[in-house]
């Protein structure tokens, strides 16, 4: 067993950038990204032995990051954040493009936060981290077919929640059907501090 700094160099050092990017892509907000990274590091610290002994520590750490980012998304839903992503925009994009992208990202992240934890983590690991199903199954502690199922179900659910993005149709103006958001209900229900 190495010293603490050795362990950092061995476990975290090589994937620092991936950890940060992974959290950022899911969370998309500087403050929440910081909080999520801090939580991920705390989780790694608490489970250091498990991480050290895991057959694929890198994948496990990335899963912890995805978990923390997913929690950040859920928390944001619960504190009634309608505009999920706070974007630091690409300077080359026009204001209109930036606004459109930010809105689309916010919608996607909102939808991701509605997936179950396993589905959200699986689809993020697959589609954003380009991890193999074998790695995903190892980190989720399930079989490879199950990992495939999680990813497929997540995509199907996202497709149901975001049909207009698939069809490239303009966004519906009447948003009455998407307003059943428990996080919003809570925001207006101060007497019920449930979530």
């Amino acid at each position, binding site marked *: 067993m190495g010293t603490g700094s050795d*362990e*950092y160099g061995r476990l975290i050092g090589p994937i620092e950038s991936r950890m940060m990017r992974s959290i950022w892509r899911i969370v998309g907000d500087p403050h929440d990204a910081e909080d999520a990274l801090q939580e991920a590091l705390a989780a790694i610290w608490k489970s250091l032995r498990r991480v050290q002994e895991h057959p694929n520590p890198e994948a496990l750490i990335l899963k912890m990051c995805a978990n923390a980012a997913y929690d950040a998304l859920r928390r944001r839903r619960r504190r009634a954040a309608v505009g999920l992503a706070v974007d630091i925009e690409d300077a080359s994009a026009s204001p209109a493009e930036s606004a459109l992208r930010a809105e689309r990202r916010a919608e996607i992240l909102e939808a991701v936060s509605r997936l179950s*934890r396993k589905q959200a983590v699986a689809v993020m690991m697959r589609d954003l981290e380009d991890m193999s199903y074998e790695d995903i199954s190892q980190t989720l502690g399930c079989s490879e077919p199950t990992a495939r199922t999680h990813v497929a179900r997540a995509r*199907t659910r996202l497709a149901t929640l975001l049909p207009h993005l*698939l069809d490239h149709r303009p966004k519906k103006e009447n948003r*009455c059907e998407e307003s059943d958001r428990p996080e919003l209900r809570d925001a207006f229900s101060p007497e019920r501090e449930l979530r």
Partner: protein
Amino acid sequence: MKNPTDQNSEMRSVLKENLDRQLPPEVEQRLRGRLAAFRQQMRAVGSTAASGGHRVSVRRWRWALAVGAAASVLLVGVFHLFRQGEDGAALAYAAVLQQVRAAQTATCQVSVEAPGQPLQTLRCTFVEPALMRCDVGDAGAAIIDFGKKELLILDRTAQTFTVAQLDGVPYIDNLVERLKSLPDRMKEVESLGQRTFDGRSLTGFRTSGKGVTATLWVDPQAKELIRAEFQIGKTTATMTNLAFDVPVDESLLSLEPPQGYTRQETKVNIAELIAGASGAARAVPPEAQGTPAGIMKIWPSRGLSGPNMRMMAGEYYAEGYDVLHMIQDAYFISGPRVVIESPLPKGLYDVYFKAPEGHEAELWEAHNAALRAELEKQFGITAHTEKREMEVYVMTAPGGRAAALRDPESTIHGSYCEGSKYRNVGLGFLEYGLQGYLKKSVVDETGLTGHYDFELACKGTSPEAVVAAVQEQLGLKLTPEKRLIDVLVIEQAKTQK
């Protein structure tokens, strides 16, 4: 209809296109600060923690190193959060939070006030990661390992000890953990101004969440936490004489009973004892004792008039809920969209649920599924969703976007509402909130799709007052009409005797 495989791969492209983006340098800098602090922490604590599982070494010199190293790096990060509009008070709060979070030990006096109970004063010691000792005068002490969920009670007078598992008493509060988890964003903290305690002028901060209100009193000059009050239900726990990172005799927190003490099979209600000893705890109610993990337990409430909920470590305990609220929780739907075709059971209920082991993080998902199952089992409630023509309020903007709906000044804090101030919110936010007052669904047909800053203050909460305020202050009209919307139909429910 799309082929599912095409749809699947298209969704992958959508995710990649929209979420796969570069980390901005300023965000990377912040995150690297966090990583650097963590590296320092690992270096400082060394291999002891790594090889010893979750428990960090409790040797003093290592604490000093860990605290010093982590603090020097983290301080910058924490202060960074307050760079906008900071003042002395915010900095004092940040410094205190930093000190508390970095602390490996803490000692304090805890006074507990609960209705119908005499004031109880305890001397408490906390050691990271999860040890707590509470001394009740010279009579005895309780030592709790939250990590192992074990408890040792020492009776000094009788020289006896009792060992118990905490599984039956999950609502123990580690008050130092509560302090550590206080929010670090000032927008979530209410400033209470100055107040004098024992001739000392202190600055107050208050924050609420999950049924707990925490009030901190900080010395702004010394940047020290002097007093912390936690209001949990009707119980108040006040921490005073606080000291952090003080040397602690480890043997005092050992779960091994001292020599000469004999084991006692006690009839003491451990739950109640711990509730007192920990300052603000609540035991699992007798009705829920023995409820297996993953199973929802619902029983008639013991007379509370309003809802109150606590959630901790994979467990959920709510008091005073009516069946309609339970349905809303179980199906994640707002009240006006629940159509009741069969009368619901009356009265208030308490609810207890414990997530299956290993699934504590998925408490809500498991809770909702179990609640639906129990609603069906206990109350015979079955439901389905369908589209129905319902009476709703249709929200329109006859004059287009009113001047009151301003472009957001800032989007950095996301969307939120503080009192009458709405910041960076879309009208979906407003629409949803109005439903609670109007008791009907609101359908947004304004065509206004942006996010706005605005103020909305109503004189009263009647539908008429709300409709008038929305029109006068925001230029939005709410008209009662009929529309086809998704609803949850409660088909059947049996009433309780």
